[in-house]
């Protein structure tokens, strides 16, 4: 097959309105891709400014107030508008109905509405940024956010609140889609692991996001209407805010990491030509991470005045939630054993993911363990740890998935070599940026510091240099993908020779995905079986 199919979801209708009013899950996925990419670029610029400022010990580039706004806006943009929506809203929207053999998600109009809600939330937040920014940190801790900060907490809070509903509604939509829209024969244990991951994620979105929504709303009401729910001068408790905030925001980490883990499972199976080792263990580890994830929030508060006994319980549960992640990693490793490893660009990203997620996950043990957490809490150790998980893990997984499904989304193939160079640069740049921060953290450098003692300059210089390489890596990866849109070879239906219903239809798919609703008769990743037929 050397030419693009004549009718695809991309060319079936034309014009801006046909995109802005689309109910096609594939187009909506691309709409998210546009907005999330803008947010990622914004957040990336802020990250660059942070690293430039920290190149030298004194605060000599921007004022303290500006610095505080920069790191806050970096966090808000990246957490709420990149990491949370990236894989579920972009890749999930595009791939989920295809993988289920469905024509669309269960509620296509609601899906479009979710995108509009997301955009409105983003506009509020962008408005807060344009009007001078927010300086509370992305965590909006009270009483600073309610009484002391004189920045645009209201607008940013309302933006986050609104965006939360986009996430909730997407969760509801995906849950129902997975329950009710599966093709005939596609039983639960034949589902691709990406679907399991999205299911677990949706659970977290439905149960967690509303809590942070109401909490941020309470902060906004406290600022705007003078309510006094967290006000210590009335006897209110600022620590209660932290409980409510982390009840969501810790599980939110799993919203960020579970879907990329699912994408990684897809890629590993495809490029080692094997079924995922211990399919059901990987599937259930996603669910148990989602469930256990709700029981560990107070590990963000070990030094925030909670009782030592509750700290002990939360420490224990935090160790427990680490186990399913370890199980996943071992299963991925075992999947590679005696595979037929075809090392294409997505696999390169998988390897990057494995390396970074491994470090990110293992350094979590230092923070779960109370004795060491007291010392490294709120230091750069924590910053390094969660960047390894949320950027090293989640963004690498997102890029793996994006490179994996890109030919399906666009019908074009990017340059494998260029994409691999991008992946390598990202991996090297990332480690150079964030590994020194573990050391800085243990040395005692607190996070959110505009300036620092001179003895830490060397490590910060390394970190800033790494950030430069990381930035070039991202630009290269994006460049390779954009280049393919115009110059890339025609991909064909199944360039990776992968299993999965999404590869049985044309690339780019038909507006309604399949000519006929497929009927499933075999388990996922049935490479051995299928290839015998081919050969």
């Amino acid at each position, binding site marked *: 097959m050397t030419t693009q199919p004549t009718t695809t979801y991309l060319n079936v209708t034309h014009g801006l309105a046909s995109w802005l009013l689309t109910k096609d899950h594939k187009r909506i996925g691309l709409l998210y891709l546009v907005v999330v990419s803008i947010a990622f670029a914004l957040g990336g610029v802020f990250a660059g400014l942070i690293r430039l400022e920290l190149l030298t010990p004194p605060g000599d580039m921007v004022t303290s107030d500006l610095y505080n706004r920069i790191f806050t806006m970096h966090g808000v943009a990246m957490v709420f508008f990149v990491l949370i929506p990236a894989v579920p809203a972009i890749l999930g929207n595009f791939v989920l109905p295809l993988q289920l053999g*469905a*024509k*669309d998600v*269960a*509620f*296509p109009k*609601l899906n479009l509405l979710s995108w509009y809600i997301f955009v409105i939330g983003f506009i509020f937040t962008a408005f807060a940024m344009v009007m001078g920014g927010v300086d509370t940190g992305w965590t909006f801790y009270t009483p600073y956010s309610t009484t002391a900060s004189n920045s645009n907490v209201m607008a940013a809070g309302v933006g986050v609140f609104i965006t939360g509903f986009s996430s*909730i509604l997407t*969760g*509801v*939509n995906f*849950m*129902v889609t997975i*329950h*009710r*829209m*599966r*093709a*005939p024969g596609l039983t639960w244990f034949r589902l691709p692991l990406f679907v399991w991951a999205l299911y677990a994620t949706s659970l977290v979105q*439905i*149960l*967690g*996001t*509303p*809590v942070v*929504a*109401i*909490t941020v709303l*309470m902060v906004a*009401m*406290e600022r705007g*209407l*003078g*309510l*006094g*729910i967290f*006000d210590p*001068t*009335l*006897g*209110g*408790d600022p620590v*209660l805010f932290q*409980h*409510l905030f982390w*009840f969501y925001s810790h599980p939110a980490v799993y919203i960020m990491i579970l879907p990329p883990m699912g994408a990684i499972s897809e890629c590993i199976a495809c490029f080692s030509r094997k079924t995922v080792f211990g399919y059901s263990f990987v599937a259930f580890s996603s669910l148990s991470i989602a469930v256990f994830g709700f029981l560990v929030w107070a590990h963000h508060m070990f030094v925030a005045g909670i009782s030592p006994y509750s700290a002990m319980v939360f420490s224990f549960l935090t160790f427990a939630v680490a186990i399913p992640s370890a199980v996943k990693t071992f299963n991925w490793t075992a999947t590679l054993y005696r595979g037929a490893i075809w090392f294409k660009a997505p696999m390169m990203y998988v390897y990057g993911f494995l390396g970074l997620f491994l470090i990110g996950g293992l350094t979590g043990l230092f923070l779960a363990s109370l004795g060491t957490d007291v010392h490294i809490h709120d230091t750069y150790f924590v910053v390094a740890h969660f960047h390894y998980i949320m950027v090293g893990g989640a963004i690498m997984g997102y890029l793996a998935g994006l490179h994996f499904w890109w030919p399906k989304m666009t019908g074009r193939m990017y340059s494998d070599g260029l994409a691999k160079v991008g992946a390598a640069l990202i991996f090297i740049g990332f480690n150079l940026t964030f590994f020194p921060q573990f050391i800085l953290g243990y040395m005692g450098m607190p996070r959110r510091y505009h300036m620092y003692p001179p003895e830490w300059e060397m490590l910060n210089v390394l970190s800033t240099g790494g950030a430069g390489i990381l930035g070039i890596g991202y630009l290269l990866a994006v460049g390779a993908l954009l280049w393919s849109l115009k110059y890339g070879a025609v991909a064909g239906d199944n360039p990776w020779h992968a299993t999965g219903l999404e590869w049985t239809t044309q690339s780019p798919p038909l507006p*309604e995905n*399949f*000519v*006929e*609703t*497929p*009927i499933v008769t075999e388990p996922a990743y049935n490479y051995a079986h299928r290839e015998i037929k081919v050969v």
Partner: protein
Amino acid sequence: MSEVAAPAHAVGHGHDALHHHAAQQHHFESLDQQHEASTLGMWFFLVQEVMFFGGLFTAYMVYRIWYPEAWAEGSRELDILLGGINTVVLIGSSLTMALAVRSAQVGSNKGAFRWTMLTMILGLTFLVIKFFEYEHKFELNHVPGANFVFEGPHANQVEIFLSLYFAMTGLHALHMIIGFGILAWVAWLAHNERFSREWSTPVEMTGLYWHFVDIVWIFLFPLLYLVDRAGQLG
């Protein structure tokens, strides 16, 4: 393919529009599948609503354990008579809502329209009474914020109580207002004779939502109005 009791995962077909109900969306295989999806979606949505209110209930619980006296004091400031009337009004509206669903399910658009309108009237009654309660609080300067005035030994903590009162009842009232809008849409559908024995999903979903909003009030009323009313009325 037969359209009679088609299973949710009926073997696929293209656009076999002959037997499709007008309300069936093209991406579903059957009207049943569409109805099941809507119902499941509504329940998941209600789960998130529970969590949404849950944040406020948690704050309420923590402070009530810390400041029981202030809670009793603050609660006594609320008008138990108006609150009680509203409770009755809202339970009544749940009944009329249930009757609207029933009418639609048996294909009576006229009945569905009437009961929906009655539900709207009861909902409006609730909101009007709530408005007067709020107004009274404003007159007494019992609204948290810069102008808050309260005489009593636990004035500060009573302000927290009243903050939660306004947050919780305000959020509940917002849900009522949204529900009011949805009911208006349902009434319009019923007026246009859109419901039938085969298809009454919007009324059923609205019913689930409306009952949920009522249940929230069933929790709010004792938690806010009846904290310290043992042995007293009014």
